[in-house]
């Protein structure tokens, strides 16, 4: 029996999410004496996965499959699982994987659990913890089927190096490529060069406290010096001050970076629902009663227009050390 991970690529390279999945799979495989396989299309540096404990990478070189299509990739992963006797399959929580997940679950006849935040419990039954109620609860979920599909929550597992001697194997999955004709990609709009909000380790976010779009320069600069992505609260996106892709919260993106810095955001429950998976949260707000102070780890009570520029200078100085 093997554990199979769906390894996604980013610009042809193994994505960070794939390393997280590998680390999760390896930690579990070490407990159960299993091996970890990975399957991915167009991974130029597939061998990179050996570092994180993957014993074998099934590399798919088919040009068509290099582009994501939920149905084609679901077939590819299902075929890899069947041919390699894998009954536990792991996927990430990227937009693509979330899209593919249920289609794959259907092909595998697998019990499917999303937003998983723990390794399976040590018990006779297969139980994992997952986030529910937008991070306001945790559900111990038992999977009753032989085949199991887990979607691992973002940033819940650290990437851990556990190198093994792995092998690369060319894999030609049985996929009906006609699905690419059924879903023609006509255009892609992607912000290039910027760190994507979903993958960012650090996110600098601002709210209505900033008064207007003209004041976002300092937020972008703070993000720049930290190598962070930028985000915003819902009203800010609704007012058109920032692109709505930046809107985080219950009805926007759900993110879970290592560090979330909230500037001039009150900390409404719907906002927190999208960000309280973050490992560390810093709030900067001039109202000491702002609810965000109850949720954050670190706080500065002060005027953003005074604190943020100072903080930028301090961080610049710190980075120079």
């Amino acid at each position, binding site marked *: 029996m093997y554990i199979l991970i769906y390894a996604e690529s980013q610009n042809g390279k193994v994505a960070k999410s794939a390393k997280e999945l590998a680390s999760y799979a390896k930690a579990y495989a070490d407990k159960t004496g299993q091996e970890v396989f990975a399957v991915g299309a167009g991974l130029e540096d597939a061998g990179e996965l050996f570092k994180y404990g993957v014993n074998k990478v099934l590399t798919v070189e088919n040009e068509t499959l290099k582009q994501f299509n939920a149905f084609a990739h679901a077939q590819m992963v299902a075929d890899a699982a069947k041919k390699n006797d894998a009954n536990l399959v792991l996927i990430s929580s990227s937009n693509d994987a979330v*899209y593919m997940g249920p289609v794959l*679950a259907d092909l595998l006849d697998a019990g*499917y659990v999303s937003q998983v935040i723990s390794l399976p419990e040590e018990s006779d039954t297969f139980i994992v913890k997952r986030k529910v109620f*937008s991070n306001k609860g945790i559900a111990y979920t038992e999977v009753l089927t032989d085949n199991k599909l887990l979607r691992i929550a973002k940033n819940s597992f650290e990437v851990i190096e556990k190198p093994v001697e792995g092998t690369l194997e060319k894999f030609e999955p049985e996929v009906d490529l006609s699905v690419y004709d059924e879903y023609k990609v006509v255009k892609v709009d992607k912000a290039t060069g910027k760190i994507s909000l979903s993958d960012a380790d650090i996110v600098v976010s601002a709210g209505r406290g900033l008064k207007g779009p003209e004041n976002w320069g300092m937020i972008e600069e703070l993000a720049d010096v930290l190598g962070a992505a930028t985000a915003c609260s819902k009203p800010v996106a609704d007012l058109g001050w920032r692109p709505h892709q930046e809107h985080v919260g219950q009805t926007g993106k759900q993110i879970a970076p290592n560090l979330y810095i909230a500037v001039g955001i009150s900390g409404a429950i719907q906002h927190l629902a999208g960000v309280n998976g973050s490992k560390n949260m810093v709030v900067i707000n001039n109202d000491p009663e702002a609810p965000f*102070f109850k949720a954050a780890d670190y706080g500065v009570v002060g005027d953003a227009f005074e604190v943020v520029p100072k903080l930028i200078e301090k961080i610049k100085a710190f980075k120079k050390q």
Partner: protein
Amino acid sequence: MKILFLMSSVPDTTSKINFTDNDTKFDESGIQFVINPHDEFGLTKAVQIKEKNGAEITVLNVGTAKTEPVIRKVLAIGADKAVRIDAEPLDSYFTAVQIADYIKKHNDFDLIIAGKESLDYNGAMVHGLVAGMTGLKFVNAVMGLELKDDKTVEVAREIDGGKEYIETTLPLIIGGQKGLVKEEELRIPNMRGIMMARKKPLEVLPPVDAPVRTKIDKYEKPAPKGAIKLVDKDNLDELIDLLHNEAKVI
């Protein structure tokens, strides 16, 4: 055109979440249920299509009689008729089997609109499972939909860091979200709608037999946060020190 709207009824977003029965059940006392916020965008889109091109909208919910007030709200906003499959939606697989069965029996929907994820169990799977079970086309995280002609649609799908525009054909299942319609276009029930909703048909069907594939054994609340550390605004070096040495994030 026939539209099927899949509605998930979820606790109001400001609800405090508690568990009862030795933490094995979600405590519904005092909870106000609402249309899943992601679903609302799709509902408004359906109503807009109806107004522009003509359509019949059926709302389908798998749930117990408790969900009827929320179903009535959907009727008040503009759905023409409702179907409730009378069962506790035990897990996503069970729920999807019910919906897929209904779709197969009717087999005449052009567009099936769901939300990308329900805000209670955050599964993001019911509609995708239905796609697998029915063989219907499916696009998730849809933030724009344009009907090109009787058959062709262009949808914008959210991808990490942007949008992908896909041309596909009806019949189609979408997982909708913000962007599908503008925030200010979202419909809320008005008095006339509420009056009319009372007269619209709401059919209650028995569930079909289906196993569950997952089961929740117990719940817990996330560990409470430690107290916040406040840093004086004139001493930001301390913040940098904490972030570097304690949190180890910079």
